[in-house]
């Protein structure tokens, strides 16, 4: 399979509303899916929203090469995502995909995935991929409240799932970084993959540095193109300003200027 970017009209197979703020779009590709790696994302064209001019980036949540479908997990933030939430089976969504680099295949089996908010999106696909490589990660997911806890059975297929909620209505109360599994003298992980709000990723990065654990994060940024030509999405790294949509979205924390 070729790793080639394409622009395609995908057909909405179903829209699964997980809760008031989150939904899944299952999309059928018109031709054979290209090879997609965990951590890669797509740029979705929102139609019918007068205030949405540019495409919107979403991680690939899962891929089914057999059925030629992929899923996006979307959190409703503003007008663009609200319009996407109105899509119904049979509607069309134009995507550019797959974009960006990917999480790396770790050389260890002691792997932790940490996700928060819509940052959980790429982790399902990553967990699946790790399983295919005989790695059964621990998966730590942070949600606002019990109502938003979702897809736990899905994640559980690929590893042990731990949950935190801000209000303690499910799992441990607090932030992901406060979860007991990370509050030990030495944590049982040699590699962490993290995706979520900036503050969360920075907290996890500090912890990883403290424990000298290798860690990759998937950054967000403001994107105009998503395929490397506008230079709007840069982040400072050891090589200067790099594009989050091309050299990223996944970066090893040691390459970032976060210390």
């Amino acid at each position, binding site marked *: 399979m070729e790793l080639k970017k394409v*622009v395609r009209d995908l057909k909405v197979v179903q829209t699964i509303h997980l809760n008031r703020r989150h939904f899944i779009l299952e999309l059928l590709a018109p031709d054979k899916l290209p090879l997609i790696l965990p951590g890669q994302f797509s740029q979705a064209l929102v139609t019918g929203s007068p205030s949405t*001019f*540019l495409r919107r980036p979403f991680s690939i949540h899962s891929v089914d090469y057999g059925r030629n479908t992929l899923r996006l997990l979307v959190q409703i933030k503003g007008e663009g995502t609200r319009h996407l939430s109105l899509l119904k089976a049979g509607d069309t969504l134009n995507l550019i995909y797959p974009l960006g680099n990917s999480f790396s295949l770790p050389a260890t089996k002691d792997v932790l995935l940490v996700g928060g908010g819509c940052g959980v999106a790429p982790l399902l696909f990553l967990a699946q991929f790790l399983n295919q490589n005989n790695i059964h990660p621990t998966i730590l997911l942070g949600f606002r409240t019990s109502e938003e806890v979702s897809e736990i059975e899905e994640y559980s297929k690929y590893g042990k799932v731990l949950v935190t909620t801000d209000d303690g209505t499910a799992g441990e109360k607090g932030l992901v970084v406060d979860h007991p599994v990370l509050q030990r003298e030495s944590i049982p992980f040699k590699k962490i993959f993290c995706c979520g709000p900036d503050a969360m990723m920075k907290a996890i990065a500090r912890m990883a540095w403290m424990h000298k654990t290798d860690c990759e994060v998937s950054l967000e*940024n403001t994107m*105009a*193109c998503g*395929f490397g030509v*506008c230079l709007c999405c840069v*982040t400072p790294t050891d090589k200067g*300003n790099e594009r989050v949509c091309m050299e990223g979205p996944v970066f090893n924390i040691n390459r970032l200027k976060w210390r």
Partner: protein
Amino acid sequence: MPDLSVNIAGLHFKNPVTTASGTFGYGDEFLEFIDLGRLGGIFVKAVTGKNRDGNAYPRMAETPAGMLNSVGLQNKGVDHFCREIYPRIQDFKTNIIVNVSGSTVEEYVEVAERINELEKVPGIELNISCPNVKLGGMAFGTVPAMATEVTAEVRKVYKKVLMVKLSPNVTSITDLAKAVVDGGADAVTLINTLLGMAIDAERRRPVLSTITGGLSGPAIKPVALRMVWQVHKAVNVPIVGLGGIMNATDAIEFILAGATAIQVGTANFIDPEVSVKIADDIEAYLVRHRIGAVSELIGALRTE
């Protein structure tokens, strides 16, 4: 089949559709999407004398029917361009025009001189209009005497097609156009971005790290069309027109207003295949209107 070709100061373009600097990388990012050979030309990202990191992020804000950017001429300098980029792109089957930027007359001249040596680059576009660099473009692009000077100095060392890209943030675009023609420009490109600003009311902060940035996209199309029209009536050199072109209808509007060629900018972000579609749809327009050559449309607005 109508004739889509146009000519700018002796340089042949197979069709009037080119891509705007800063919105098309060095072209190679688009190889996955389109056949570059179907385009009249590509204007690559600004090249400066030395490496520039550009501005801090956030560098982008979406606005009604447009966007602001404050990329700020991020590039690795002219050396790197000649050594690393040029060999990679020189065999594209289209006109490769290099967008030349700088903070001083000397820097413009230095870059132009280096690019002059590149056999397969038939022209440059002097960017005297970038509003993002403090010690940079703004002044050259808004003061006619300085615009004449920088153009004339570059003209001395640059032997091929010299286009100058103007800033729309001026009282009189025709004065600037005349100034660069006086300096020896073979053609003018207009427009660069309008200087704008975005604010996040909830956080009470500017959205861009630089507070202000350059506005592009359909929002600016009426201003761009007006300037192309004004300049078309005022000077006698070809115009490369751009600003918010999203489809062939927009492109034809610019040609009718006086543009010999057009550039597709921000639209590339929304549809990386759009430039080729525009070329196809211009052809369809010509067929539908029974027009033999696109050149017949240049400045052909009926105002009687």
